[in-house]
Protein backbone atom coordinates (compact mmCIF):
# COMPACT_ATOMS: atom_id res chain seq x y z
CA UNK A 1 0.00 0.00 0.00
CA UNK A 2 1.37 3.39 -0.98
CA UNK A 3 2.85 5.62 1.71
CA UNK A 4 3.11 8.44 -0.81
CA UNK A 5 1.44 11.72 0.05
CA UNK A 6 0.60 14.98 -1.64
CA UNK A 7 3.82 16.30 -0.08
CA UNK A 8 5.85 13.69 -1.96
CA UNK A 9 4.08 14.72 -5.16
CA UNK A 10 5.09 18.36 -4.66
CA UNK A 11 8.68 17.34 -3.90
CA UNK A 12 8.83 15.30 -7.12
CA UNK A 13 7.54 18.18 -9.22
CA UNK A 14 9.97 20.60 -7.60
CA UNK A 15 12.77 18.19 -8.48
CA UNK A 16 11.56 17.60 -12.05
CA UNK A 17 10.69 21.15 -13.03
CA UNK A 18 12.00 23.64 -10.44
CA UNK A 19 11.73 26.67 -12.71
CA UNK A 20 8.27 26.08 -14.07
CA UNK A 21 5.48 28.30 -12.73
CA UNK A 22 3.35 26.39 -10.25
CA UNK A 23 0.91 29.20 -9.50
CA UNK A 24 0.23 32.52 -11.15
CA UNK A 25 -1.76 35.25 -9.42
CA UNK A 26 -2.03 38.49 -11.37
CA UNK A 27 1.47 39.55 -12.38
CA UNK A 28 3.12 37.20 -9.88
CA UNK A 29 4.38 33.72 -10.82
CA UNK A 30 5.67 31.31 -8.19
CA UNK A 31 7.91 28.51 -9.44
CA UNK A 32 7.94 24.95 -8.19
CA UNK A 33 11.29 25.56 -6.51
CA UNK A 34 9.83 28.55 -4.68
CA UNK A 35 6.62 26.73 -3.71
CA UNK A 36 8.78 23.92 -2.33
CA UNK A 37 10.85 26.41 -0.35
CA UNK A 38 7.78 28.16 1.06
CA UNK A 39 6.10 24.89 2.09
CA UNK A 40 9.27 23.44 3.58
CA UNK A 41 10.00 26.65 5.49
CA UNK A 42 6.57 26.59 7.11
CA UNK A 43 6.81 22.86 7.87
CA UNK A 44 10.16 23.29 9.62
CA UNK A 45 8.85 26.30 11.51
CA UNK A 46 5.73 24.49 12.77
CA UNK A 47 7.75 21.44 13.77
CA UNK A 48 10.28 23.60 15.62
CA UNK A 49 7.42 25.31 17.44
CA UNK A 50 6.19 22.00 18.75
CA UNK A 51 3.50 20.89 16.30
CA UNK A 52 2.72 17.26 17.06
CA UNK A 53 1.56 14.86 14.36
CA UNK A 54 -2.21 15.18 14.15
CA UNK A 55 -2.43 18.77 15.43
CA UNK A 56 -4.91 20.89 13.52
CA UNK A 57 -3.75 23.98 11.69
CA UNK A 58 -6.47 26.17 10.23
CA UNK A 59 -5.97 28.05 7.00
CA UNK A 60 -8.07 31.09 6.14
CA UNK A 61 -6.84 32.38 2.82
CA UNK A 62 -8.09 33.09 -0.65
CA UNK A 63 -6.54 31.03 -3.44
CA UNK A 64 -2.93 32.17 -3.56
CA UNK A 65 0.59 30.75 -3.71
CA UNK A 66 0.68 31.13 0.09
CA UNK A 67 -2.46 29.03 0.44
CA UNK A 68 -0.85 26.20 -1.53
CA UNK A 69 2.46 26.47 0.32
CA UNK A 70 0.70 26.50 3.69
CA UNK A 71 -1.44 23.49 2.81
CA UNK A 72 1.58 21.39 1.84
CA UNK A 73 3.67 22.78 4.68
CA UNK A 74 1.08 21.89 7.31
CA UNK A 75 0.78 18.33 5.98
CA UNK A 76 4.55 17.90 5.70
CA UNK A 77 4.90 18.90 9.35
CA UNK A 78 2.40 16.17 10.23
CA UNK A 79 -0.40 18.65 10.89
CA UNK A 80 -4.00 18.40 9.74
CA UNK A 81 -4.84 21.18 7.29
CA UNK A 82 -8.23 22.73 8.03
CA UNK A 83 -8.91 25.07 5.13
CA UNK A 84 -11.81 27.33 6.05
CA UNK A 85 -14.35 28.95 3.76
CA UNK A 86 -13.10 32.52 3.29
CA UNK A 87 -16.63 33.79 2.66
CA UNK A 88 -17.80 32.66 6.09
CA UNK A 89 -18.37 35.14 8.90
CA UNK A 90 -16.57 35.18 12.27
CA UNK A 91 -19.44 33.28 13.83
CA UNK A 92 -18.93 30.14 11.70
CA UNK A 93 -15.16 30.54 11.57
CA UNK A 94 -14.99 30.65 15.37
CA UNK A 95 -17.21 27.57 15.63
CA UNK A 96 -14.99 25.59 13.33
CA UNK A 97 -11.76 26.70 14.98
CA UNK A 98 -13.04 25.71 18.40
CA UNK A 99 -14.58 22.46 17.13
CA UNK A 100 -11.30 21.24 15.61
CA UNK A 101 -9.25 22.72 18.46
CA UNK A 102 -6.86 24.39 16.06
CA UNK A 103 -3.38 25.09 17.45
CA UNK A 104 -2.55 27.55 14.68
CA UNK A 105 -4.51 29.89 12.48
CA UNK A 106 -2.76 30.92 9.27
CA UNK A 107 -4.82 33.76 7.82
CA UNK A 108 -4.79 36.50 5.22
CA UNK A 109 -3.93 39.62 7.20
CA UNK A 110 -6.60 41.49 5.28
CA UNK A 111 -9.41 39.00 5.81
CA UNK A 112 -12.40 41.20 6.71
CA UNK A 113 -13.57 38.96 9.56
CA UNK A 114 -10.20 38.79 11.29
CA UNK A 115 -10.87 41.55 13.86
CA UNK A 116 -14.17 39.94 14.98
CA UNK A 117 -12.58 36.50 14.98
CA UNK A 118 -9.66 37.58 17.13
CA UNK A 119 -12.08 39.24 19.54
CA UNK A 120 -13.43 35.78 20.38
CA UNK A 121 -11.69 33.88 23.19
CA UNK A 122 -9.04 31.62 21.70
CA UNK A 123 -5.70 30.01 22.28
CA UNK A 124 -4.45 29.41 18.76
CA UNK A 125 -1.16 30.89 17.52
CA UNK A 126 -1.44 33.25 14.59
CA UNK A 127 0.54 33.44 11.37
CA UNK A 128 -0.50 36.24 9.03
CA UNK A 129 -0.14 36.23 5.26
CA UNK A 130 0.57 39.59 3.63
CA UNK A 131 0.83 43.06 5.01
CA UNK A 132 -1.11 43.82 8.18
CA UNK A 133 -3.54 46.64 7.37
CA UNK A 134 -3.18 49.84 9.37
CA UNK A 135 -5.44 49.84 12.39
CA UNK A 136 -5.58 46.06 12.79
CA UNK A 137 -4.36 45.29 16.25
CA UNK A 138 -3.18 41.71 16.26
CA UNK A 139 -1.75 40.25 19.40
CA UNK A 140 1.61 38.49 19.11
CA UNK A 141 1.76 36.91 15.73
CA UNK A 142 4.25 35.80 13.14
CA UNK A 143 4.42 36.78 9.50
CA UNK A 144 4.30 34.07 6.87
CA UNK A 145 6.73 36.05 4.74
CA UNK A 146 9.27 36.27 7.59
CA UNK A 147 9.10 32.52 8.16
CA UNK A 148 9.76 31.90 4.46
CA UNK A 149 12.59 34.45 4.28
CA UNK A 150 14.30 33.15 7.41
CA UNK A 151 14.55 29.57 6.18
CA UNK A 152 17.85 28.43 4.67
CA UNK A 153 17.48 25.60 2.16
CA UNK A 154 14.63 23.94 4.07
CA UNK A 155 13.88 20.31 3.19
CA UNK A 156 10.37 19.01 2.68
CA UNK A 157 9.87 15.71 4.52
CA UNK A 158 6.50 14.11 5.22
CA UNK A 159 6.16 13.46 8.95
CA UNK A 160 2.78 11.78 8.47
CA UNK A 161 1.34 9.43 5.84
CA UNK A 162 -1.08 6.57 5.23
CA UNK A 163 -4.09 6.54 7.52
CA UNK A 164 -2.96 9.49 9.59
CA UNK A 165 -5.19 12.52 9.20
CA UNK A 166 -4.22 15.07 6.56
CA UNK A 167 -7.21 17.41 6.31
CA UNK A 168 -10.58 18.40 7.68
CA UNK A 169 -13.12 20.10 5.41
CA UNK A 170 -16.09 21.69 7.17
CA UNK A 171 -19.28 21.38 5.17
CA UNK A 172 -21.66 23.00 7.64
CA UNK A 173 -21.38 25.48 10.43
CA UNK A 174 -24.13 25.09 12.98
CA UNK A 175 -23.04 25.66 16.55
CA UNK A 176 -24.53 22.38 17.69
CA UNK A 177 -23.04 20.12 15.10
CA UNK A 178 -20.47 21.35 12.64
CA UNK A 179 -19.73 18.69 10.02
CA UNK A 180 -15.99 18.27 9.50
CA UNK A 181 -15.07 15.70 6.87
CA UNK A 182 -11.80 14.06 7.92
CA UNK A 183 -9.48 12.86 5.17
CA UNK A 184 -6.30 10.84 5.58
CA UNK A 185 -3.15 11.19 3.52
CA UNK A 186 -4.10 7.97 1.77
CA UNK A 187 -7.62 9.26 1.01
CA UNK A 188 -6.30 12.38 -0.67
CA UNK A 189 -3.43 10.74 -2.51
CA UNK A 190 -5.54 7.84 -3.79
CA UNK A 191 -8.20 10.18 -5.16
CA UNK A 192 -5.65 12.41 -6.89
CA UNK A 193 -3.97 9.40 -8.54
CA UNK A 194 -7.33 8.08 -9.65
CA UNK A 195 -8.37 11.43 -11.14
CA UNK A 196 -5.04 11.70 -12.96
CA UNK A 197 -5.51 8.24 -14.45
CA UNK A 198 -8.64 9.26 -16.34
CA UNK A 199 -7.92 12.97 -16.98
CA UNK A 200 -4.45 12.05 -18.28
CA UNK A 201 -2.96 15.45 -17.51
CA UNK A 202 0.35 16.28 -19.17
CA UNK A 203 3.24 18.04 -17.43
CA UNK A 204 2.77 21.17 -19.53
CA UNK A 205 -0.83 21.66 -18.42
CA UNK A 206 -1.98 25.23 -17.72
CA UNK A 207 -5.33 25.55 -16.00
CA UNK A 208 -7.22 28.74 -15.27
CA UNK A 209 -8.85 28.05 -11.93
CA UNK A 210 -11.91 29.85 -10.57
CA UNK A 211 -12.87 27.31 -7.88
CA UNK A 212 -11.95 27.88 -4.24
CA UNK A 213 -9.28 25.49 -2.96
CA UNK A 214 -11.10 25.11 0.36
CA UNK A 215 -13.82 23.08 -1.37
CA UNK A 216 -12.99 19.53 -2.39
CA UNK A 217 -13.36 20.22 -6.14
CA UNK A 218 -10.88 23.11 -6.06
CA UNK A 219 -8.65 21.10 -3.73
CA UNK A 220 -8.46 18.32 -6.32
CA UNK A 221 -7.50 20.80 -9.03
CA UNK A 222 -4.63 22.13 -6.95
CA UNK A 223 -3.21 18.72 -6.14
CA UNK A 224 -3.64 17.10 -9.56
CA UNK A 225 -1.81 19.97 -11.22
CA UNK A 226 0.97 20.10 -8.66
CA UNK A 227 1.38 16.33 -9.00
CA UNK A 228 2.05 16.58 -12.76
CA UNK A 229 4.04 19.82 -12.53
CA UNK A 230 1.41 21.88 -14.31
CA UNK A 231 0.65 25.57 -13.93
CA UNK A 232 -2.40 26.95 -12.13
CA UNK A 233 -3.50 30.46 -13.04
CA UNK A 234 -5.65 31.85 -10.22
CA UNK A 235 -8.73 33.85 -11.14
CA UNK A 236 -10.45 34.34 -7.83
CA UNK A 237 -13.76 35.70 -8.99
CA UNK A 238 -16.45 34.96 -11.54
CA UNK A 239 -18.08 38.32 -11.02
CA UNK A 240 -16.69 39.40 -14.37
CA UNK A 241 -16.88 36.36 -16.67
CA UNK A 242 -15.25 38.28 -19.50
CA UNK A 243 -12.10 38.47 -17.37
CA UNK A 244 -11.93 34.72 -17.05
CA UNK A 245 -12.19 34.24 -20.81
CA UNK A 246 -9.46 36.82 -21.36
CA UNK A 247 -7.27 34.93 -18.92
CA UNK A 248 -7.92 31.61 -20.68
CA UNK A 249 -6.84 33.17 -23.97
CA UNK A 250 -3.87 35.12 -22.64
CA UNK A 251 -2.32 32.17 -20.83
CA UNK A 252 -3.11 29.72 -23.65
CA UNK A 253 -4.81 27.61 -20.99
CA UNK A 254 -5.09 23.88 -21.67
CA UNK A 255 -7.64 23.15 -18.97
CA UNK A 256 -10.65 24.66 -17.24
CA UNK A 257 -12.98 23.38 -14.53
CA UNK A 258 -16.32 24.60 -13.32
CA UNK A 259 -19.59 23.94 -11.59
CA UNK A 260 -22.83 24.39 -13.53
CA UNK A 261 -23.11 28.11 -12.75
CA UNK A 262 -19.57 28.66 -14.05
CA UNK A 263 -20.71 27.55 -17.50
CA UNK A 264 -24.09 29.26 -17.41
CA UNK A 265 -22.33 32.51 -16.48
CA UNK A 266 -19.70 32.23 -19.21
CA UNK A 267 -22.25 31.26 -21.84
CA UNK A 268 -24.94 33.65 -20.70
CA UNK A 269 -22.99 36.72 -19.74
CA UNK A 270 -19.87 36.76 -21.87
CA UNK A 271 -18.93 36.09 -25.47
CA UNK A 272 -17.04 32.81 -25.46
CA UNK A 273 -16.67 32.96 -29.25
CA UNK A 274 -14.78 36.26 -29.07
CA UNK A 275 -11.80 34.67 -27.32
CA UNK A 276 -9.06 32.41 -28.63
CA UNK A 277 -9.52 29.20 -26.66
CA UNK A 278 -7.69 27.04 -29.21
CA UNK A 279 -5.18 25.76 -26.62
CA UNK A 280 -7.91 24.22 -24.42
CA UNK A 281 -7.55 20.45 -24.32
CA UNK A 282 -10.09 19.58 -21.68
CA UNK A 283 -12.86 20.95 -19.49
CA UNK A 284 -14.32 19.36 -16.37
CA UNK A 285 -17.74 19.94 -14.87
CA UNK A 286 -18.96 18.69 -11.49
CA UNK A 287 -21.03 19.99 -8.60
CA UNK A 288 -24.48 19.18 -9.92
CA UNK A 289 -26.23 18.77 -13.26
CA UNK A 290 -25.54 21.22 -16.08
CA UNK A 291 -28.42 21.32 -18.55
CA UNK A 292 -27.58 19.44 -21.80
CA UNK A 293 -28.38 22.59 -23.79
CA UNK A 294 -25.47 24.38 -22.09
CA UNK A 295 -23.13 21.43 -22.58
CA UNK A 296 -24.01 21.34 -26.30
CA UNK A 297 -23.61 25.08 -26.68
CA UNK A 298 -20.22 25.02 -24.96
CA UNK A 299 -19.04 22.16 -27.17
CA UNK A 300 -20.18 23.95 -30.31
CA UNK A 301 -18.02 26.89 -29.31
CA UNK A 302 -15.05 24.89 -28.02
CA UNK A 303 -15.33 21.61 -29.95
CA UNK A 304 -11.67 20.63 -29.62
CA UNK A 305 -11.68 20.38 -25.79
CA UNK A 306 -12.68 17.06 -24.21
CA UNK A 307 -15.63 17.62 -21.88
CA UNK A 308 -15.62 15.58 -18.66
CA UNK A 309 -18.80 15.36 -16.60
CA UNK A 310 -18.02 14.16 -13.08
CA UNK A 311 -19.69 13.49 -9.75
CA UNK A 312 -18.39 13.34 -6.22
CA UNK A 313 -18.69 14.40 -2.63
CA UNK A 314 -16.42 15.98 -0.07
CA UNK A 315 -16.82 12.74 1.90
CA UNK A 316 -15.13 10.93 -1.01
CA UNK A 317 -12.12 13.31 -0.99
CA UNK A 318 -13.64 14.73 -4.15
CA UNK A 319 -14.45 12.31 -6.93
CA UNK A 320 -16.59 9.21 -7.35
CA UNK A 321 -17.51 8.97 -11.03
CA UNK A 322 -16.56 10.30 -14.46
CA UNK A 323 -18.19 10.21 -17.87
CA UNK A 324 -15.63 9.44 -20.59
CA UNK A 325 -15.90 12.36 -23.04
CA UNK A 326 -16.28 10.08 -26.07
CA UNK A 327 -19.47 8.67 -24.51
CA UNK A 328 -20.94 12.07 -23.62
CA UNK A 329 -23.36 12.36 -26.55
CA UNK A 330 -24.57 8.82 -26.12
CA UNK A 331 -24.93 9.09 -22.34
CA UNK A 332 -26.02 12.72 -21.96
CA UNK A 333 -27.49 13.24 -18.47
CA UNK A 334 -25.33 10.52 -16.91
CA UNK A 335 -22.59 11.13 -14.35
CA UNK A 336 -20.71 8.17 -15.85
CA UNK A 337 -18.91 5.26 -14.30
CA UNK A 338 -16.90 4.82 -11.08
CA UNK A 339 -13.38 6.21 -11.22
CA UNK A 340 -10.54 3.68 -10.86
CA UNK A 341 -10.38 2.31 -7.33
CA UNK A 342 -14.00 3.16 -6.48
CA UNK A 343 -16.84 0.66 -6.23
CA UNK A 344 -20.44 1.83 -6.40
CA UNK A 345 -23.60 -0.03 -5.44
CA UNK A 346 -27.19 1.15 -5.55
CA UNK A 347 -29.07 0.07 -2.46
CA UNK A 348 -32.57 0.33 -1.05
CA UNK A 349 -33.51 1.78 2.34
CA UNK A 350 -32.69 -1.54 4.02
CA UNK A 351 -29.20 -1.57 2.60
CA UNK A 352 -29.97 -4.26 0.01
CA UNK A 353 -28.62 -3.93 -3.54
CA UNK A 354 -31.48 -3.03 -5.90
CA UNK A 355 -32.16 -5.04 -9.09
CA UNK A 356 -30.55 -3.73 -12.28
CA UNK A 357 -32.29 -0.71 -13.75
CA UNK A 358 -33.99 0.27 -10.50
CA UNK A 359 -33.34 3.36 -8.45
CA UNK A 360 -31.32 3.14 -5.26
CA UNK A 361 -29.09 5.22 -3.02
CA UNK A 362 -25.47 5.49 -4.12
CA UNK A 363 -23.16 3.65 -1.74
CA UNK A 364 -19.45 3.97 -2.49
CA UNK A 365 -16.30 2.25 -1.33
CA UNK A 366 -12.65 2.93 -2.04
CA UNK A 367 -9.42 4.34 -0.69
CA UNK A 368 -10.77 7.86 -1.14
CA UNK A 369 -13.66 7.53 1.32
CA UNK A 370 -13.31 9.76 4.39
CA UNK A 371 -12.39 8.56 7.86
CA UNK A 372 -15.59 10.06 9.27
CA UNK A 373 -16.85 13.37 10.65
CA UNK A 374 -14.55 15.03 13.17
CA UNK A 375 -15.67 14.22 16.69
CA UNK A 376 -19.12 13.14 15.58
CA UNK A 377 -19.36 9.35 15.97
CA UNK A 378 -23.16 9.24 15.58
CA UNK A 379 -23.18 11.03 12.26
CA UNK A 380 -20.17 9.02 11.12
CA UNK A 381 -21.92 5.75 11.95
CA UNK A 382 -24.97 6.82 9.92
CA UNK A 383 -22.85 7.75 6.92
CA UNK A 384 -20.14 5.08 6.83
CA UNK A 385 -21.67 1.61 7.05
CA UNK A 386 -19.39 -1.43 6.86
CA UNK A 387 -16.80 0.64 5.04
CA UNK A 388 -19.31 1.99 2.52
CA UNK A 389 -20.13 5.70 2.19
CA UNK A 390 -23.85 6.43 2.01
CA UNK A 391 -24.06 9.45 -0.28
CA UNK A 392 -27.74 10.26 0.19
CA UNK A 393 -28.02 10.65 -3.59
CA UNK A 394 -30.41 8.47 -5.57
CA UNK A 395 -29.46 7.01 -8.93
CA UNK A 396 -30.17 4.29 -11.47
CA UNK A 397 -27.67 2.43 -13.59
CA UNK A 398 -28.15 1.54 -17.26
CA UNK A 399 -27.17 -1.76 -18.88
CA UNK A 400 -23.71 -0.38 -19.74
CA UNK A 401 -23.07 0.54 -16.11
CA UNK A 402 -23.56 4.31 -16.48
CA UNK A 403 -25.11 6.09 -13.53
CA UNK A 404 -27.92 8.63 -13.72
CA UNK A 405 -28.66 10.73 -10.63
CA UNK A 406 -32.40 10.98 -10.15
CA UNK A 407 -32.64 12.60 -6.74
CA UNK A 408 -30.30 14.48 -4.51
CA UNK A 409 -29.76 14.65 -0.84
CA UNK A 410 -33.13 16.17 -0.13
CA UNK A 411 -32.50 19.17 2.11
CA UNK A 412 -29.14 20.35 0.81
CA UNK A 413 -29.23 23.58 -1.19
CA UNK A 414 -26.81 23.92 -4.09
CA UNK A 415 -26.16 27.51 -5.08
CA UNK A 416 -23.31 28.15 -7.48
CA UNK A 417 -20.27 26.31 -6.13
CA UNK A 418 -21.74 26.24 -2.62
CA UNK A 419 -23.57 23.48 -0.80
CA UNK A 420 -25.69 24.92 1.96
CA UNK A 421 -27.29 23.17 4.91
CA UNK A 422 -30.62 24.88 5.65
CA UNK A 423 -29.96 24.40 9.36
CA UNK A 424 -27.02 26.84 9.28
CA UNK A 425 -29.34 29.61 8.11
CA UNK A 426 -32.33 28.56 10.21
CA UNK A 427 -30.18 28.71 13.33
CA UNK A 428 -29.06 32.26 12.57
CA UNK A 429 -32.59 33.47 11.76
CA UNK A 430 -34.01 31.88 14.93
CA UNK A 431 -31.82 34.20 16.95
CA UNK A 432 -33.71 37.19 15.64
CA UNK A 433 -36.30 38.59 18.08
CA UNK A 434 -39.83 37.88 16.95
CA UNK A 435 -39.09 34.72 14.96
CA UNK A 436 -41.35 31.92 16.16
CA UNK A 437 -40.32 29.37 13.59
CA UNK A 438 -38.32 29.30 10.39
CA UNK A 439 -37.64 26.92 7.52
CA UNK A 440 -35.10 27.47 4.79
CA UNK A 441 -35.33 25.88 1.36
CA UNK A 442 -33.66 26.12 -2.03
CA UNK A 443 -35.69 27.51 -4.92
CA UNK A 444 -34.72 27.16 -8.59
CA UNK A 445 -32.56 29.87 -10.14
CA UNK A 446 -31.56 29.93 -13.77
CA UNK A 447 -28.01 31.08 -13.12
CA UNK A 448 -27.03 29.55 -9.78
CA UNK A 449 -29.11 26.38 -9.86
CA UNK A 450 -30.77 27.26 -6.58
CA UNK A 451 -30.99 30.25 -4.29
CA UNK A 452 -32.01 30.45 -0.64
CA UNK A 453 -35.54 31.21 0.49
CA UNK A 454 -36.54 31.64 4.13
CA UNK A 455 -40.10 31.05 5.30
CA UNK A 456 -40.82 32.57 8.68
CA UNK A 457 -43.58 32.48 11.23
CA UNK A 458 -43.27 35.77 13.11
CA UNK A 459 -44.72 36.67 16.47
CA UNK A 460 -47.69 39.07 16.30
CA UNK A 461 -46.54 42.70 16.32
CA UNK A 462 -42.92 41.66 15.92
CA UNK A 463 -42.43 44.29 13.25
CA UNK A 464 -40.19 41.89 11.32
CA UNK A 465 -39.78 42.51 7.64
CA UNK A 466 -37.72 41.09 4.80
CA UNK A 467 -35.00 43.69 5.07
CA UNK A 468 -34.42 43.17 8.77
CA UNK A 469 -34.09 39.45 8.25
CA UNK A 470 -31.62 39.90 5.42
CA UNK A 471 -29.59 42.48 7.33
CA UNK A 472 -29.45 40.15 10.33
CA UNK A 473 -28.25 37.26 8.13
CA UNK A 474 -25.73 39.40 6.34
CA UNK A 475 -24.00 40.17 9.63
CA UNK A 476 -23.80 36.55 10.65
CA UNK A 477 -23.58 34.45 7.51
CA UNK A 478 -21.56 34.24 4.34
CA UNK A 479 -23.10 36.35 1.57
CA UNK A 480 -24.24 33.29 -0.41
CA UNK A 481 -26.27 32.09 2.60
CA UNK A 482 -28.29 35.31 2.89
CA UNK A 483 -31.83 34.47 1.72
CA UNK A 484 -32.71 35.88 -1.68
CA UNK A 485 -36.35 35.95 -0.66
CA UNK A 486 -38.12 35.97 2.68
CA UNK A 487 -41.73 34.96 3.03
CA UNK A 488 -43.88 35.36 6.13
CA UNK A 489 -46.57 32.74 6.79
CA UNK A 490 -49.08 31.92 9.53
CA UNK A 491 -47.70 28.43 10.01
CA UNK A 492 -45.29 25.97 8.43
CA UNK A 493 -46.63 22.85 6.72
CA UNK A 494 -45.75 19.78 8.76
CA UNK A 495 -46.13 16.04 8.78
CA UNK A 496 -48.16 14.28 11.47
CA UNK A 497 -44.94 13.76 13.41
CA UNK A 498 -44.18 17.46 13.30
CA UNK A 499 -41.45 17.40 10.62
CA UNK A 500 -41.49 20.38 8.29
CA UNK A 501 -42.56 19.53 4.74
CA UNK A 502 -39.83 21.47 3.02
CA UNK A 503 -40.83 20.49 -0.48
CA UNK A 504 -44.10 22.40 -0.01
CA UNK A 505 -42.19 25.60 0.67
CA UNK A 506 -39.93 25.70 -2.39
Amino acid sequence: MSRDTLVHALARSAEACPDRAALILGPRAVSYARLYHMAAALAEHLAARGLAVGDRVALLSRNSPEYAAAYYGIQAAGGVAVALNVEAKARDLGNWLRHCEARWLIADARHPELPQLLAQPHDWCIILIGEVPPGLDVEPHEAFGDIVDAAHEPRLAARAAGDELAAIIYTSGTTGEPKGVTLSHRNLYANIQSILSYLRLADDEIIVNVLPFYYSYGNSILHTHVAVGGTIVLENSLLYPQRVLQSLARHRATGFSGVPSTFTLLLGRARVEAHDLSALRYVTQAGGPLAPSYIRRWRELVPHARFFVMYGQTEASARLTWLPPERLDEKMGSVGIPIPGVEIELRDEHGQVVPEGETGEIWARGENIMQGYWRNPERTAETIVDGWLRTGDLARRDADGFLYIVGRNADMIKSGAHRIHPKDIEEAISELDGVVEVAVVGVPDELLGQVVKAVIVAAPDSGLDERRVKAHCRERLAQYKVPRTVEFVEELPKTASGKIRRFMLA
Partner: protein
Amino acid sequence: MREQVRQFILENFLYTDDGSALRDDASFQESGIIDSTGIIELVEFLQDQFAVTIDDDDIVPENIDSVDAIVGFLQRKGCQA
Protein backbone atom coordinates in the same frame (compact mmCIF):
# COMPACT_ATOMS: atom_id res chain seq x y z
CA MET B 1 -26.38 59.88 -10.08
CA ARG B 2 -23.89 58.84 -7.43
CA GLU B 3 -26.56 58.97 -4.75
CA GLN B 4 -28.98 56.85 -6.79
CA VAL B 5 -26.34 54.18 -7.33
CA ARG B 6 -25.42 54.24 -3.66
CA GLN B 7 -29.05 53.96 -2.58
CA PHE B 8 -29.63 50.97 -4.85
CA ILE B 9 -26.61 49.11 -3.47
CA LEU B 10 -27.39 49.96 0.16
CA GLU B 11 -30.98 48.92 -0.20
CA ASN B 12 -30.52 45.75 -2.26
CA PHE B 13 -27.20 44.32 -1.16
CA LEU B 14 -26.46 45.75 2.27
CA TYR B 15 -30.08 46.02 3.48
CA THR B 16 -29.54 49.30 5.29
CA ASP B 17 -30.05 53.08 5.11
CA ASP B 18 -26.75 53.68 6.80
CA GLY B 19 -24.65 55.38 4.15
CA SER B 20 -21.45 54.76 6.10
CA ALA B 21 -21.78 51.03 5.32
CA LEU B 22 -20.60 51.64 1.75
CA ARG B 23 -17.38 53.30 0.71
CA ASP B 24 -17.43 54.68 -2.81
CA ASP B 25 -14.06 53.17 -3.64
CA ALA B 26 -14.79 49.74 -2.13
CA SER B 27 -14.28 46.97 -4.68
CA PHE B 28 -17.34 44.71 -4.96
CA GLN B 29 -15.02 41.87 -5.89
CA GLU B 30 -12.79 42.29 -2.85
CA SER B 31 -15.50 43.06 -0.32
CA GLY B 32 -17.96 40.39 -1.44
CA ILE B 33 -20.82 42.90 -1.31
CA ILE B 34 -22.28 41.66 -4.59
CA ASP B 35 -22.38 38.17 -6.11
CA SER B 36 -22.73 37.04 -9.73
CA THR B 37 -26.49 37.45 -9.84
CA GLY B 38 -26.21 40.73 -7.96
CA ILE B 39 -24.08 42.11 -10.77
CA ILE B 40 -26.86 41.28 -13.22
CA GLU B 41 -29.42 43.08 -11.05
CA LEU B 42 -27.08 46.04 -10.77
CA VAL B 43 -26.53 46.21 -14.53
CA GLU B 44 -30.28 45.99 -15.15
CA PHE B 45 -30.85 48.81 -12.69
CA LEU B 46 -28.23 51.00 -14.36
CA GLN B 47 -29.72 50.36 -17.81
CA ASP B 48 -33.24 51.20 -16.66
CA GLN B 49 -32.40 54.10 -14.43
CA PHE B 50 -29.92 55.88 -16.68
CA ALA B 51 -31.19 54.73 -20.08
CA VAL B 52 -27.82 53.34 -21.17
CA THR B 53 -27.04 50.15 -23.03
CA ILE B 54 -24.49 47.97 -21.27
CA ASP B 55 -22.94 45.17 -23.34
CA ASP B 56 -21.34 42.02 -21.93
CA ASP B 57 -17.98 43.51 -22.92
CA ASP B 58 -18.70 46.53 -20.69
CA ILE B 59 -19.10 44.38 -17.60
CA VAL B 60 -15.51 44.54 -16.40
CA PRO B 61 -14.11 45.74 -13.06
CA GLU B 62 -12.93 49.05 -14.52
CA ASN B 63 -16.56 49.99 -15.23
CA ILE B 64 -18.56 48.29 -12.52
CA ASP B 65 -16.49 47.23 -9.52
CA SER B 66 -17.18 50.19 -7.18
CA VAL B 67 -19.49 53.17 -6.87
CA ASP B 68 -16.68 55.38 -8.17
CA ALA B 69 -16.11 53.08 -11.14
CA ILE B 70 -19.82 53.06 -12.01
CA VAL B 71 -20.10 56.84 -11.85
CA GLY B 72 -17.06 57.19 -14.13
CA PHE B 73 -18.49 54.63 -16.54
CA LEU B 74 -21.90 56.33 -16.69
CA GLN B 75 -20.22 59.66 -17.37
CA ARG B 76 -18.19 58.11 -20.20
CA LYS B 77 -21.47 56.74 -21.55
CA GLY B 78 -22.74 60.33 -21.67
CA CYS B 79 -25.00 60.31 -18.62
CA GLN B 80 -25.25 63.63 -16.84
CA ALA B 81 -24.33 63.77 -13.17
